[in-house]
């Protein structure tokens, strides 16, 4: 007797009774019943607010107003004409690109160092994972103290080592360019662990035969890195990069804690500016319109992910 026949006999003997009994054994409806709650929750708490945000961006809603009026693209016109918008957009792009470039380079070196076995590896792994697991807001506070205008440990150390002139004492978070550099440093610090463990997973999945074959053929260290390893881990490096871009591009916490967008809005990013406009300023419509400028990047990354998912399915 085939397995299917076994099952049907078993099902017949069991003879489920009642609606729930029949549901528990009907694969098609059971799948739907098990999926429905999660999908409903996501639709209500992600889909619905997103549509609401689209709607708000076309109205004049504020925190206090009980009613709202449709104003068309007025909010977007106002935003595009504002200098702060272009500055925020520029800052968001620069901070994301520079930090993620550094992250990918750093993560490669660190992942390569972590492939080999050595004593105390678990401790090293724990220490390098800390920035990723600790709440960003708390990690950023640690950096707020490191960048402090009077007690900055960076300045003290650099002066003690003779790297800084005795008269040179940079105020990290008080000058626009330095503040932006500080924000980049904190983003690199936070995303590097994630990128490292993702790339490490890629490195360990390369079969040893390939390394052996390359060694037999006489490939040197650099040639091995660039012609063998790098192409093999390119897909997973891209995955790490996509996550890094999403997490940095849409983040407002680092800016919120370090500079609050200051001095004079020069370090504002799209997400933080949306917060200060929409929540602190009470202009919900303006805030919603600003935050929608994050959406195109999100769509682009989502398309890349779909492409990866498809590729993974085929291979």
């Amino acid at each position, binding site marked *: 007797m085939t397995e299917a026949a076994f099952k049907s006999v078993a099902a017949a003997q069991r003879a489920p009774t009642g609606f729930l009994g029949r549901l528990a054994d009907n694969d098609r409806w059971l799948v739907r019943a098990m999926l429905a709650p999660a999908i409903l929750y996501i639709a209500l708490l*992600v889909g619905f607010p997103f549509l609401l945000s689209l709607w708000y961006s076309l109205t004049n809603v504020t925190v206090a107003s009980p009613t709202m009026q449709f104003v068309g693209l007025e909010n977007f016109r106002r935003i595009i004409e504002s200098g702060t918008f272009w500055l925020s957009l520029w800052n968001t792009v620069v901070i994301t690109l520079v930090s993620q470039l550094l992250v990918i380079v750093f993560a490669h070196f660190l992942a390569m160092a972590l492939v080999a076995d050595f004593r105390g590896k678990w401790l090293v792994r724990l220490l390098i994972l800390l920035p990723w697991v600790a709440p960003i807001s708390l990690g950023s506070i640690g950096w707020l103290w490191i960048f402090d205008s009077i007690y900055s440990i960076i300045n003290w150390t650099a002066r003690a080592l003779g790297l800084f002139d005795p008269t040179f004492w940079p105020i990290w978070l008080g000058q626009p360019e330095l503040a932006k550099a500080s924000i980049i440093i904190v983003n690199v*610090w936070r995303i590097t662990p994630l990128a490292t463990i993702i790339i490490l997973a890629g490195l360990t999945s390369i079969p040893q035969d390939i390394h052996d074959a390359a060694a037999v053929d006489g490939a040197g260290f650099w040639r091995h890195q660039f012609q063998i390893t790098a192409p093999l881990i390119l897909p997973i490096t891209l995955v790490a990069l996509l996550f890094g871009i999403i997490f940095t591009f849409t983040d407002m916490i680092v800016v919120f804690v370090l500079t609050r967008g200051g001095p004079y809005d020069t370090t504002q990013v799209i997400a933080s500016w949306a917060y200060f406009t929409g929540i602190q300023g009470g202009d919900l419509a303006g805030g919603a319109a600003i935050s929608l400028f994050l959406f195109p990047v999100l769509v682009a990354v989502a398309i890349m992910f779909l492409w990866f998912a498809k590729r993974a399915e085929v291979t």
Partner: protein
Amino acid sequence: MNARVAKLRRAGGRAGHAAILVFFVTFLAFPFYWMLITTFKTTQDLQNTEHNPYLFHDPPTLHHLAVLFEDTQFLQWLVNTGLVGIAVVVITLLLAVPAGYALARMTGPWGQTLGVAIFLTYLVPPTILFIPFSRIIAMLGLQDSLWSLVLVYPSFTVPFCTWLLMGFFKAIPRDLEDAAMIDGLSRFGAFVKVVMPISVAGLLTAVIFAFTLVTQEFVYGVTFITSSSSYTVSVGVPTFLVRGDVYFWGSMMGACLIASVPIAIIYNFFVDRFVAGFTVGAVK
């Protein structure tokens, strides 16, 4: 001669390896080391710029931790974080476990597509949704209430955990359930009595992940909550302890350490599973 070159090269490689590790461990772990030093230093010692800041000039003190626990609402924030975390974990499991199983056992291209679609909603950031949410929460009368967080946080824990669990259930051989069903269990019965007991590791991973996401969340917390007694740790420390002209650096650094290191240690045991979830099948 050749052997000597090879030996030198190996020594060079080892030194390079060590140098890379030292550089990155310093960069990544230094802020936490610095938190540790700051927590136990007296305020005079911290504020004397003549002193070498790496050393203790006054004996270590527990004063900052005493201030943190006695004069601030830090303990309350820890409790709040724990309560919200537990509630969110329960909701997440109730929704994500059945959904993950259904996706894993769905045949045809539908299962994979739907799974990816659910995962993508995890990438929709709070910074796009927090503005409409602020009004929804106000209309529901949940401002300043921890329930607002309990309601909203599953919107990002459910998508990721569903995806994570889907991968986990896929790895369980179908034969197990088929055998159970031949023995007279219904499909659902086989899921509860056969699949769940051998999935404890996967469920635990989802629990840790959901809880970690709750402790890390900041944007919704700072948007919905304005009274300090309802803060979670990640919101309370940066907003309440920084406000005003006086920075209680010692207490703040202590708070950061206490709230981040224990979770990091637990997370470390499960990290390989998270990576598997994050890499969307790009590693095979």
